């Protein structure tokens, strides 16, 4: 899952990045409104969620959000700001935000809310994603197969996480690349295949199906 962090205060930005990376997200950080508008509005850079500060240099956060929504961008947006009166909360929600968190905040709360946003955006009601025997606990970034915990690297986790969030669709290779790497990460398209191969070894056989020319799909194995 790829998250865009829009925050002009560098210390908070790095704290957020650290916490989000630790929770298994690929994180892009921008520090001003114009960059935020550009990155968040780029269709080739699909983000699964955005953490948006409101007081930004160059372009105000609310304006950025309105422009995204006007351009048809639908990714969930969590506003993280020091402005805490209800007047501003109403303005934020009406501009198209999905949640609103005020500073100073607890990192756990931010992570929980972000998880819930991504889950709801994918149409999942529970914090646990289930595909047959495979259970992905988004709360603790833990995967179990038939009750046994799998040990996954962070990239393997991200690939499986994305596939399970979109378990009823064919996920293209480029989609996967976009959602597991931050933008400035040195991407090598081959590595997706490497991660898929490693996952196939760790998961029951036939769970990850290759759809020729299109990408990958999770196949619901009959419950054993």
């Amino acid at each position, binding site marked *: 899952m790829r998250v865009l962090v829009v925050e002009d*205060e560098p*210390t*908070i930005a790095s*704290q957020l990045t650290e*916490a989000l990376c630790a929770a298994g997200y690929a994180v892009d950080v921008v520090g001003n409104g114009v960059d935020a508008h550009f990155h968040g509005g780029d269709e080739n850079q699909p983000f699964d969620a955005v953490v948006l500060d409101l*007081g930004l240099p160059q372009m105000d956060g609310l304006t950025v959000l309105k422009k995204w929504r006007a351009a048809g961008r639908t990714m969930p947006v969590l506003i993280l700001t*020091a*402005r*805490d*009166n*209800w*007047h501003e*909360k*109403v303005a934020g*929600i*009406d501009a198209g*935000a*999905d*949640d*609103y968190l*005020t*500073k*100073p*905040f*607890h*990192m756990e*709360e931010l992570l929980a809310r972000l998880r*819930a946003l991504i889950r*709801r955006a994918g149409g999942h009601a529970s914090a646990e994603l289930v595909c047959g025997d495979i259970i992905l606990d988004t709360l603790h970034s833990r995967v179990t197969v038939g009750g046994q915990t799998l040990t996954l690297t962070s990239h393997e986790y991200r690939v499986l996480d994305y596939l399970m969030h979109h378990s009823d669709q064919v996920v293209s290779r480029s989609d996967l690349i976009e959602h597991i790497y931050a933008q400035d990460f040195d991407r090598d398209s081959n590595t997706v295949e490497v991660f898929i191969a490693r996952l196939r070894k760790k998961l029951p056989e036939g769970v990850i199906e290759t759809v020729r020319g299109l990408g990958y799909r999770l196949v619901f194995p009959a419950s054993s």
Partner: protein
Amino acid sequence: MSFRAPSLSIALRGSLRLRLLLGTLVWIAASIMVAGWALGGLFRQHVAAQFHAELKTHLDQLAAHLVLEQDGRVSLSAAQSDPRFSKPYSGVYWQIDQVGQSGNNVFGLLRSRSLWDDVLEVPSDTPMNGEIHQHRVSGPGNTTLGMVERVVSLEDPPPGQAEARFRLIVAADERQMLEPVERFNGMLWLTLGLLGGGLALVAVIQVLIALVPLRRLHGALAAVRSGRTLNLEGRFPGEVQPLVEEFNTVLAQNAEVVERARTQAGNLAHALKTPLSVIANAANGKDSELAHLVTSQVEVARKQIDYHLSRSRAAASVRIPGVRTPVFPVLEGLVRVMKRIHADRNIELTILPSSEQVMFRGEEQDLQEMLGNLLDNACKWASGRVDISVSAEEPYLTIVIDDDGCGIAEAERLRVLDRGERVDELTPGSGLGLAIVNDVMRLYGGRLEFVDSQLGGLRVKLTLPMTD
């Protein structure tokens, strides 16, 4: 008198009306006194001149009729034309004295019939020929007479006789002169009194009318104070208008200063929150004494900032007069927010419909602050349903929020309203929400009640005054 002077000067300083009135009345009284005295004197002079002129006419007639007989006696060639000379004690008299060579005067040589047997006592001065002297003498019956006299010498005295000189006297009772003067004075003072009274009445009316704009100004100021208007409204006379304009400028300046102070308080609070976030996040998850201290103190600092920020906002806005906020748009906006931030809890929020357009007397932000915190609490506690109803019954606006949560025990309800008190430490939220609601509500003179809800949880009833 010495103890009365300060009280008068205080009264004068205290009342513009009294000052204006007193000045005018003193002036009116002085003018009337002077006019009365001057006119009375003038008339008296005129009547006296007429009186004496009449006496002189009689004197001339008397001189013309005076005849010296061959035997040296004098007689009158004709009777005086005025019949009053013939009527005893009529008040008009004449008398002819002989002036002797060496002061041996003969008084009353000839007298008018009106004198009867009295003789006028005349001061023994001797006017030169042709001179006319005026005197006041006492006459018959204790009257005071105005009198003129002259001395005539008859020419060509009979041979052997010395030149004869006679003093001719005409006198009249002064009452004949004083009576019209008194009548005139009576009329004069009556007229002047009426004039003065009329002027004083007009002065009173004028002062009252002139001071009406001040009373209007008072009303306009009261309207500003009670919040019905933002400025002193209406046109005032040219003398008062500059004052009104200056005052409006001061009001506008005041509002600007308040607004600036508010913005700065807000900026300070927001500026502090970012470093607080940094500190809190840095300490987060570390298991040291320092980290725990930092975490707890950051929480305290955040509460203080939130509380005082919202207080300063509310305190500054509550007396900005004349502001009205429609209630339903505010509620609808807040419900949209609640549906988002409590999306995981799947709470059904319903605003019960009302046909009226209900207005809140105050700022939108303050209403949002109160209802936002109340709704947030309701959503945190509800199991699945929150109902909101609004009703307006002059002079109160009532907003009722029901939830189907577990409610609050009666004993706890009062404690909950206290600042920063949390009923259940496990429920997220700073606990300051209700304290803020309580503060803002009190600034607006409202009331907050907790009762049992029909839905099973808590019913929060917020009552706010609708008029100033």
